[in-house]
C-alpha cells in the first residue's frame, strides 16, 4: 500500500507539468489505445470477407502498442520527468522497440484490406506522393530521427521539453513517428512504392546507428542541460547498450529479408555441373 501511495504521489507531481487540464501524456495514451482498437476491429471485420489475417501480426501490433503505452503513460513515463535513465528507456521503447513490432504487423496492408476501393486508391496515391516519398527516403528518415535526437539533447530544447507540456507532447509524437518511418524505410513489410537497394539501406542503417552511438557517448561527457554528470553517464550507457540490442534486432530482420530475397533456385555446384550457360570467368 505504501509503495502504491508513493507511486501515486509521484505521478501527481508529474501531472503538474500539464497545462489547462488536458494532460498531453494521456492524449498520446489515447492515441495508442485508439490505434490498437482500430487494428483489432479491422482484423475482425476483414476476416469475414477475406482469408484469415495472421494472428502473429495482430500480436505484434498489440505488443507494439503496449510498449508505446508503457513509454508514455504509467510509472515509467512519470519518472521519466525527473529521472534521465527512465527518460532514456522510454525513448528507446517509443521510438525503437514499438516501431519494429508495428512494422512487422503491416498496418498499411491491413488498412488497404479494410478500405473500400475509392479510399484505397486515395491512400495509395498519398503513399506514392512526392512528399511521402521524400519523408520516407532512408536518408531523410534517418536525419529526422537521429538528427532530431542530436537537436534535442545538445540544445536548450531539452529544457523547454521539461517546462512546456505541449512541446513535450510534440517531441514524443515526433520521435514516435520518426522512429516508425525510419524503421519502415529500412525493413520492408508493407508495400513500398520506391524500394532502395540492400546495400544502400545497409549503409544508411550503419550511419544512423553510429549517429546514435556517438550521441550517447557525447552525452556521457557533455550532459544535456539540467542533467547531472552522474545521471547523464547512467542514461547514456543505457542508450548505448540497450540501444544496441534493439539495433541488432533491426539488423537481423534486415539481413533475413535479404537472405529470403536472394534464395537461389539451384546450388552453385549444381550450376557448374549442369549445362546451364553460366558465365565462368578465369577458367
Amino acid at each position, binding site marked *: 500500500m505504501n509503495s502504491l501511495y508513493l507511486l501515486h504521489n509521484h505521478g501527481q507531481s508529474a501531472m503538474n507539468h500539464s497545462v489547462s487540464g488536458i494532460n498531453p501524456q494521456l492524449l498520446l495514451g489515447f492515441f495508442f489505445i485508439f490505434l490498437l482498437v482500430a487494428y483489432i476491429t479491422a482484423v475482425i471485420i476483414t476476416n469475414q470477407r477475406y482469408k484469415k489475417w495472421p494472428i502473429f501480426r495482430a500480436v505484434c501490433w498489440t505488443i507494439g502498442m503496449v510498449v508505446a503505452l508503457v513509454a508514455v503513460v504509467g510509472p515509467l513515463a512519470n519518472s521519466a520527468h525527473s529521472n534521465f535513465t527512465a527518460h532514456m528507456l522510454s525513448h528507446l521503447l517509443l521510438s525503437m522497440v514499438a516501431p519494429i513490432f508495428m512494422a512487422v504487423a503491416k498496418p498499411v496492408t491491413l488498412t488497404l484490406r479494410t478500405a473500400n476501393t475509392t479510399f484505397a486508391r486515395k491512400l495509395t496515391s498519398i503513399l506514392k506522393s512526392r512528399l511521402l516519398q521524400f519523408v520516407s527516403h532512408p536518408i531523410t528518415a534517418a536525419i529526422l530521427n537521429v538528427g532530431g535526437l542530436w537537436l534535442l539533447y545538445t540544445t536548450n530544447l531539452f529544457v523547454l521539453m521539461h517546462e512546456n507540456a505541449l512541446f513535450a507532447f510534440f517531441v514524443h509524437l515526433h520521435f514516435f513517428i520518426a522512429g516508425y518511418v525510419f524503421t519502415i524505410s529500412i525493413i520492408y513489410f508493407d508495400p513500398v512504392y520506391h524500394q532502395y537497394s*540492400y*546495400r544502400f539501406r*545497409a549503409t544508411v*542503417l*550503419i*550511419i544512423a*546507428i*553510429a*549517429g*546514435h*552511438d*556517438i550521441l550517447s*557517448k*557525447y552525452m*556521457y*561527457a557533455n550532459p544535456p542541460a539540467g542533467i547531472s554528470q552522474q545521471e547523464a553517464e547512467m542514461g547514456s*550507457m543505457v542508450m*548505448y547498450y540497450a540501444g*544496441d540490442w534493439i*539495433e*541488432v534486432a533491426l*539488423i*537481423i530482420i534486415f*539481413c*533475413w529479408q*535479404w*537472405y529470403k530475397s*536472394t*534464395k*537461389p533456385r539451384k*546450388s*552453385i*555446384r*549444381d*550450376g*557448374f*555441373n549442369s549445362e546451364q550457360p*553460366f*558465365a*565462368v*570467368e*578465369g*577458367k
Partner: protein
Amino acid sequence: MYMKNNNEIGVSSRNMWSGILFGIGLIAFIDETVFHQLLRWHHFYDKSTTDIGLISDGIFHAFSWFATIAGLFLFADLRRRNGLIFQRWLGGVLLGIGVFQLYDGIIQHKWMRIHQIRYVDNVIVYDIVWNVGALIILLIGIYLLLRTSKNSTLNEKNANE
C-alpha cells in the same frame, strides 16, 4: 546484397568477404565483452578522446554489429548455395580480426586516444603484445587467402566429384 553472378570469382570473393565481416564483428564483440565488461580494462569513455575518435568509435561499433550479422547471413547463403570454401572463409575471418585489432591498437588507442588497453604505468608492454598478436593473426589470414585464391578450391571440389 553483393554479387549476383554465380561465377566462381563471385563465390570466391564472397567467401572472403563473409569471413572478413564476421571476423571484424567477432573481434569487436570479444573486445566489448572481455576488455570492457569482464576485465574492465578499457573505459567506456575516457576524457582524453578526440572528437574524431568519438566518431570513429561510433562508426566502428555500429559497423561491427552489422558485420557480425551480415557475415553470418552471407555464410548461411554460401552454405545454401553449396559454395562454401571453408579455408578461404577462415582466412577472411583472421584477416578481419587482424585488421580490426591493428586499427584499434594503433589508430584508435594511440592516435585518437579513445581509451588505453589498461590504465597502468607500462602500457607500452600491453600495446606491443596487442599489436604483434594482431599482426600474426593478420599474416595467417593473408596466407590462407593466398593459398585458396590461385586454383579455386571450388574447382577442385567439383573435379573430385
